[in-house]
Every structure is written in C-alpha cells, then in structure tokens.
C-alpha cells in the first residue's frame, strides 16, 4: 500500500510539472510558496534579487546555483531571519513578509542552517524534542505540573527516537549535541527540523559532509516526506542527489533566478553548465580522462617552474 501511494505522489508531482514551460518564474498549478520581487542588498552588493518564483505543493524542489548566488540569503529572507529591502511573498496564500522567524516556523515553513546550529549543551534527544510543536509543557504554568505534559512528552520522544534511528543518531541519543562530528550535526539539524512536522521544509545543503551511503538511505526518507504530503525545498551542490530526488530545479545565479525546469533538462542547460556545473559534472572521470587531466596539470606545473626559475 505504501509503495502504491509513493508512486502516486511522485506521479502526481511529475504530472503537475509536465506541461510547464522551462523558464524562470513560471507559475505552478498549486503553489505553496509564491515569491515576488525580493531584494536584499549588502552595501553595494545585491545578494538577492528574485523577480518571481513559485514552489509547487507536494513536490521536491531543488535550488541550486554557484557559491555566493544568494541561496542562503534568500532562505533567510523567506524565513524571517533577515529583513528584505523589498518584496513580498505568500505561504499557503498568507502574506509572510515582516513576519518574525518563529511565526514563520509555526505557520509551517521550517528551515535548516547551512552552518549547523546544534544546541551544544543539550543532548541529541533534547534537541529533537525541542522541535515538536504545540507542546503543553512549554507554557510556564503548565510546566509546573509535570502530569500535564508527561503524556505528550512520551509521544514526542517516541517520534524523536524513530527519526534518530533513521538518521543513524540513535547511538548518540544521550550525548551532548556539541560533541557530534560535522556530518552528524547536519543530520541532527535536518532531523530536528522534521520534528516540527512542517508543511514546507527548507533544507540548506542538508547532505554536505554526510557520508554517501547514509545520504542514499536518507534520500528515501526525503521522498517519504513527499508521500506524507510535505513539500521540500532544498539547496544542494551534490548533483547526484539533485538528480535522484528532485521533481523540479530552480537555478539561482548572482541573486536572480536564471533557470527552472526538471533536473535532466536543467543539467544539460548550457548556461547552468557554464555557471555552475563545469565540464566534469556528468560523467565520472574515466582512466584516460584522469590521465589527461594530470597531464594538463603537469604542463601547467612545468610552466610555473620555468617561470619561477627565470
């Protein structure tokens, strides 16, 4: 049964994208997030200048682009962590500009941080529990009466344990989050965001630094999220991952959206290759290519040495 719905959802998502033109700012049939004219400048630098972009509900959308393209800054604007110079956006039809970060999260739009924010002196489990919404025990007066929140806490713990097992953090359950390795922090960051049970989860490079074998198993989980009706918007530089799970890809460069489309189309788009992917993105280096590469390198080196000896 599970498998069936899985294919259904994926099919639905793909169907929604099928007839869309591959151009920046294209309107989606059922957008969960609609962004208009968001601009953010730092001094003379325009970090973000997005004209119009929509994110389809129930889909997995990738946001890619060169380093410094403004992806993270864009996330910051949308989630209320930074104030945009201008622009407006709606989430589920609700205006979200100027809404403080915690309200954005409560509305169902949750983000993770590229530079992880582990709550160091809380255990991994406590980190997870914190993510849960609508906790009775988070009210001052109820907190004083343990009976009033114990039951809910147990449910939350069960859910947290489930996620931890999935993210291979169950062994670290009782350790301080501050003692996790770089990759483990990434995992915790993402798992914690999922505890919120958001409608739209925005992941900022969730898999950078995560072991490939684990990445692979986690992709299954992300797909599951889609099956549960969640929408996912993620930033990633790992093209294998983008290709594998995304239904739609949005490309940013120098603050603006420069292309949109399904993964395959995007990855063969010359502009995207030039700006972002580079020559070797696609094929793994074959033996001969490797040789050639090294050869080139040697020549360059030679030249350099000659230069130096002059």
């Amino acid at each position, binding site marked *: 049964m599970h498998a069936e719905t899985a294919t259904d959802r994926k099919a639905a998502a793909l169907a929604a994208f099928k007839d869309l033109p591959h151009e920046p700012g294209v309107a989606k049939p059922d957008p969960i997030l609609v962004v208009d004219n968001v601009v953010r400048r730092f001094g003379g630098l325009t970090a973000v200048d997005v004209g119009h972009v929509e994110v389809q509900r129930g889909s997995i959308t990738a946001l890619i682009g060169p380093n410094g393209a403004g992806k993270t800054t864009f996330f910051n604007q949308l989630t209320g962590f930074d104030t945009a110079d201008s622009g407006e956006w709606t989430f589920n039809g609700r205006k979200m500009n100027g809404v403080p970060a915690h309200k954005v999260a409560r509305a169902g739009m949750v983000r993770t941080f590229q530079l992880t*924010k582990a*709550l160091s002196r809380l255990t991994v489990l406590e980190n997870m529990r914190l*993510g849960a919404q609508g906790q009775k*025990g988070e009210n001052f007066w109820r907190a004083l009466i343990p009976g009033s929140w114990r039951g809910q806490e147990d449910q939350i713990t069960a859910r947290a344990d489930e996620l931890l097992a999935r993210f291979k953090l169950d062994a670290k359950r009782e350790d301080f989050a501050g003692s996790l390795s770089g990759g483990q922090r990434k995992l915790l960051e993402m798992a914690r965001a999922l*505890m919120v049970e958001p409608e739209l989860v925005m992941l900022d490079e969730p898999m950078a630094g995560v072991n490939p074998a684990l990445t692979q198993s986690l992709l299954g989980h992300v797909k599951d999220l889609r099956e549960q009706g969640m929408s996912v918007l993620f930033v990633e530089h790992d093209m294998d991952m983008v290709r594998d799970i995304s239904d739609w890809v949005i490309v940013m460069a120098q603050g603006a959206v420069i292309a949109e489309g399904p993964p395959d189309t995007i990855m063969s788009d010359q502009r995207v290759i030039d700006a972002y992917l580079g020559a070797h993105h696609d094929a793994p280096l074959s033996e001969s290519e490797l040789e050639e590469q090294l050869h080139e390198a040697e020549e360059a080196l030679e030249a350099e040495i000659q230069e130096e000896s002059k």
Partner: protein
Amino acid sequence: MNWDIILSTTLKAAIGVETVWYALAAIGINIHFGYTGLLNFGQSAFLAVAGYGLAVTVTVIGLPFWIGIGVGLVAAVLLAFLLGIPTLRLRADYLAIVTIAAAEIVRLIFRSVEFKSVFGGSDGRRGFSQGFYEINPYAEGTYGFWPLSFNEREMWVLTVGWVLIAIACLIVFLLMKSPWGRVLKAIREDEDAVRSLGKNVFSYKMQSLILGGVLGCLGGFVYGLATGSVQPDIFGTETTFFAYTIVILGGAARVFGPVVGASIFWVLLVLVNGLLSGAVQSGVITFMDITQVGPFRFLLVGLGLILLLVYRPQGIFGDKRELAINAR
C-alpha cells in the same frame, strides 16, 4: 585561638541571613544566566526595587506591610519589563554591560539627594519591618543548640528565608525538567536555532527575566527585613558580582548550585576572618596587625575564589563534560 567561636560563627554563616538572601539573588541569576544564558549583571536592581518598594510603601506612604510586599513584587516585574524590552535583543556581552548600567542608574537614583524625600538618600529607609515581626510565631527567647543560637527575630527571618529558598528551588526544579526549561536551555545555546523551530524567543527570555527577577527580589525583602533597613549601596554591582560568584561556585544550571554556593561563599568569608583574627590575636601571625585582617580576608577570599575555579571550574555540582563542550 578560640575555636568554639570560629566554629560557631562559621556554622552560623553557613545558614545565616546573608547566605539566605545571597542564595535567593543567585537563584535568580542561575535562571537568567545558568539556564537561559542571559548575562544579567543587574540583579541587584531587582533586589533594590523590591526592598525599596516595600520600604517606601510602608514608611513614606504608610500602607500596611503586605501591600508593601505586593508593591515590591510588582516593582520587580515592572523592572523586568523595563529592562527586558530594550535589552533582550542584545548579544550576551552587551546585555551584561547594559544591565549593569541599568542597575547603577537605579541605585544612583535611590541614593540621590534629589529624591531624598522619597528614598531617603544615602541612608535609605528603615522602620518598615514591624508588620513582619508582628506575625512572628517564635516567642521571645534564644533558639538553637550549641554552637548555633539565634534569637526569635533571626529565627523568624531564617525560617521564612529558607522556606522561600525551598520554594524557589522546587519551582526551578520543576521548570527546568519541563519542556519550558528545555526552551530556555536551548536559547542559551543558540537562539536562532530555537527561533527556526517556532519558539518565541523574546517571550521566553522575558519570562526568564521576570522569574529570575522575582525570585531574586525575594532576597531584597529578606535583606530589608533582617536588617530592618534598606540602603542604596548594598544594591551595587558588588552584590551582583558576588551572586555570580556564588552561582559559578555551586555550578551553573544546577538547582541547588546557588544555595550551596552561597553557603560556601559566606563560610569562606567568615572562616578566613575567624582564623586570621584568631591567629593575629594569639600572636601566631605577626606580620600584620589586627586592623589589617579585613583587607587580608578579602585578599584571601579572592585567592580562594581563584583556586576553587582553577581546580573545579565547573563548580561544586557542575558537569565537567558540559564545560568541555564550549571551551574555546
């Protein structure tokens, strides 16, 4: 050396009035700093507004004692709002300085000639404690057993004080085990992360500031009632510093840390003094005279503090592992 007296004064210090009110102030700081990470260096202002709230209400306005207590509590809550609204957005170290500044402003106003008619200038106010001692259940007499003895007034203040400490500790214990406490601790670690998880950080910080302020301000009442007076200078930065020292000594973010810390602090202060003056009087120490005992005591207390923190940086109850996590 008179060991009896050294022992009895030391024991008395371990549970005495100073220990009580410093412990209360420190419990408040523990909530602010230990659990929430708010470097509130203006704790003495909470004690001050509570003490003065009570004193001014009773002596200047002439209202009954209980209303004075109410006014003191309300004043502490108001101060928390006044202090919190502008400052809670600040980074920890900025917050520290701003709260010191705010506390100094409060103290300077209380001690000013300008407002002498209300706050009594540098001499402060007295004569507001009758209401408290009128309900003293202890009959006149001396209580306790060797080497401790208290008169009925001290007994009454101490009873109330320790009951307040017990209640405060219970509240802290319950809260910090709860999800509410978890949010505070998370804010201490990284407030942006907490925000991203849908918690209203400002509101929690404010709740923490109010709770810690109100628990701390009880110390102001105890001080005022025990000495029968309030003076502006006791509510200076020194008091806050000592309260911080107490928190760290006991171990930050530990329920009983402040209480044990306060005991240790005062025991240290009194014991050092007892030993020193004993040694000087009996001629064991000859390199200083008796009037230098005072400064020497503080010098040794400073040294003791240093050594304690060098050899047990996590405090008495603290967890060394926690310390290792955030060490730079």
